[in-house]
């Protein structure tokens, strides 16, 4: 058995699932635990099993609630003690065209068809509203696959009575809902079934025998897709590419063949394939994915290749270019360290199977797609894995490459100053620190899920939870944005405390590693203290829960002047700061400006 989690997915995912489950649970990683409710319009048993495996691969240990056969609507619509007690973190609604009760008849007038369309959509909308109100958690909803038979043939697509037309319009209505509602994600089985092959996907054998709305061998594909959405919601997407050069980004070996003889551009089919692959990679910058190079080459040869005018990817599309003869695992680790990313957030792309294997063995958790050695297959091999599945796109994402570039410029500037304080003052930093604002809630939720190192409580929050906290008077919430003369870092720090009697319990405190050692944490604390005092509170209480990754903030509260109250056997510590007397401000290098709207009020 090869790797059953690589394409094409193996039925072993279902038939050997217990064995696979055991070995996945033995992975040496920090799992997060999530409760997932599957509300099905058809059999979901193997879907649950396969979903469990894919989620474990992403470090998510799931507990499941499964509705009784085809009870998705009843389970959602009516008081349901079992589901309420389960308190789902995510609800996945597995429905398809077998759940469309009525279809247009050829004799129906346009109004009747329109009414039926709205009625069918309303059946689902009512359910989504009720789920939102009752459970307030993210919802994942299948759209619809195309029917596997066509009464009128091709005309089914254009005629309003045609089922293909009906499904298309229904899917657009679902998409409208997804665009206008947060925490609602479409699982695109319309695309997935086309990718898989509709006739195999919809094999009626599985429906009539077992009431499966899709063929059993297609179940791993469905589960893979749903797991991608879930891991994206919980911030487990990959963040960066580490790319080989020779025969990966261009045809040929630049050191041997010379830059002028590389295959790239529109002159040859092979050159076109490499150009298209470069366009595909370049498009990822819009998602905030960072491009880097890890190549066994002389640096000047690598650059001479990149400087060819017909390269789609230019030198400055890359944040770090490592072209040397060191092991690639070492170069990848260096890049990760410089960018304050963990090595497991990289996708490593190399045409050489030996290099791929070394990275797989040496860099735990890094993704290494089996791209083969044919450039025309590279895009599909990477794309189908869903490494960068988008569930929320914040404006910060598109600007990320620029931010990392500014960081590189800052670290160059740093070396020019002898005194660190002098360097910090030279940055002309300005912070905006204010309560959670609607426009930042998606970024704030993203940060709670992504930040592992500078994170005191490692508490993961969905956007819905962040919004709930923002609107609740029992909480003091703060986001921090930091600008300096090199550029805007965007929202980089998040803190939240719950008022309990005369004290504030700090349940959330984290900061992006891109602004480490800038005194931003002091600016945040000054502001938290100010706001707590304004409410008449007497103390702040801080908590540190150690994980494999957050050792750097073990002494955070000591540095902030807190007294340690207790420490348990696991190293969990509790700290307190008396704020009854006026405390001197700890930040002296960042200029503070509040949220503008708030100041106006």
């Amino acid at each position, binding site marked *: 058995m090869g790797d059953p989690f690589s394409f094409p997915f193996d*039925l*072993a995912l*279902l*038939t*050997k699932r*217990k*064995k696979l489950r055991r070995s996945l649970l033995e992975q040496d990683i920090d799992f997060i635990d999530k409760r997932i409710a599957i509300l099905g319009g058809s*059999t979901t*048993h*193997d879907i649950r099993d396969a979903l469990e495996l894919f989620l474990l691969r992403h470090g998510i240990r799931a507990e499941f609630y499964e509705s009784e056969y085809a009870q998705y609507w009843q389970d959602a619509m009516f008081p349901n003690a079992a589901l309420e007690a389960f308190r789902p973190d995510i609800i996945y609604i597995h429905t398809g065209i077998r759940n469309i009760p009525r279809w247009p008849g050829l004799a129906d007038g346009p109004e009747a068809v329109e009414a039926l369309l709205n009625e069918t959509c309303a059946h689902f909308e009512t359910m989504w509203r009720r789920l939102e109100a009752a459970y307030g958690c993210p919802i994942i909803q299948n759209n619809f696959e195309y029917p596997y038979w066509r009464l009128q043939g091709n005309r089914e697509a254009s005629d309003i009575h045609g089922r293909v037309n009906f499904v298309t319009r229904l899917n657009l209505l679902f998409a409208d809902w997804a665009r206008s509602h947060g925490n609602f994600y479409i699982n695109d089985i319309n695309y997935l079934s086309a990718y898989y092959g509709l006739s195999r996907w919809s094999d009626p*054998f599985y429906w*009539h*025998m*077992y009431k*499966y709305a899709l063929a*059993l*061998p297609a179940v791993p594909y469905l589960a893979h897709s749903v797991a991608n959405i879930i891991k994206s919601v919980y911030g487990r997407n990959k963040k960066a590419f580490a790319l080989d050069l020779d025969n990966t980004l261009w045809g040929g070996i630049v050191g041997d063949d010379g830059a002028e003889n590389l295959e790239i551009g529109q002159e040859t089919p092979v050159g076109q394939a490499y150009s298209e692959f470069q366009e595909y990679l370049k498009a990822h910058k819009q998602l905030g994915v960072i491009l880097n190079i890890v190549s066994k080459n002389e640096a000047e040869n690598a650059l001479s290749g990149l400087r060819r005018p017909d390269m789609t990817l230019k030198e400055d599309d890359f944040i770090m270019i490592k072209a040397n003869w060191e092991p690639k695992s070492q170069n990848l680790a260096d890049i990760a360290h410089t960018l304050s990313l963990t090595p497991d957030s990289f996708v490593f792309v190399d045409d050489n199977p030996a290099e791929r294997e070394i990275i797989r063995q040496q860099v735990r958790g890094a993704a290494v797609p089996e791209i083969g050695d044919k450039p025309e297959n590279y895009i599909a091999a990477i794309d189908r894995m869903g490494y960068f599945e988008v569930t929320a796109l914040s404006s910060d994402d598109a600007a990320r490459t620029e931010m990392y570039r500014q960081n590189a410029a800052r670290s160059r500037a740093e070396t020019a100053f002898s005194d660190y304080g002098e360097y910090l003052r030279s940055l002309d930093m300005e912070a905006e620190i204010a309560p959670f604002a609607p426009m930042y809630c998606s970024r704030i939720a993203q940060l709670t899920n992504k930040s592992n190192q500078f994170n005191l409580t490692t508490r993961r929050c969905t956007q819905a939870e962040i919004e709930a906290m923002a609107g609740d008077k029992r909480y003091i919430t703060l986001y921090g944005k930091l600008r300096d003369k090199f550029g805007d870092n965007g929202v980089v720090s998040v803190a939240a405390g719950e008022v309990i009697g005369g004290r504030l319990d700090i349940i959330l405190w984290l900061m992006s590693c891109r602004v480490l050692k800038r005194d931003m944490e002091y600016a945040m604390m000054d502001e938290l203290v100010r706001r707590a005092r304004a409410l008449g509170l007497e103390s702040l209480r801080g908590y540190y829960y150690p994980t494999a990754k957050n050792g750097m903030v073990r002494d955070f509260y000591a540095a902030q002047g807190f007294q340690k109250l207790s420490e348990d056997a696991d190293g969990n510590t509790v700290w307190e700061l008396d704020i009854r007397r006026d405390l001197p401000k700890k930040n002296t290098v960042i200029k503070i400006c509040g949220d503008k709207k708030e100041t106006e009020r």
Partner: protein
Amino acid sequence: MNRTEIFEKLTEVFRDVFDDETLTISDATTAGDIEDWDSLSHITLLSAAEDEFGVKFDMKAVHGLKNVGEMVNLIGRLV
């Protein structure tokens, strides 16, 4: 492929699906003899057998299966 060979391969399929390396099957084995063999694992079992032997069962044939012996006969007719 003779019945003995089919039995050998099918035993492996059963062992995978029911996650029991010591499991043995005979002509007379039915769902009643294996604790985890319910209607849901039955689906997985049949699909695993299809995959292993490279065959595709039709509904009518699958529906009438009474015990492992009949499953072996069915596979024997298809391979």
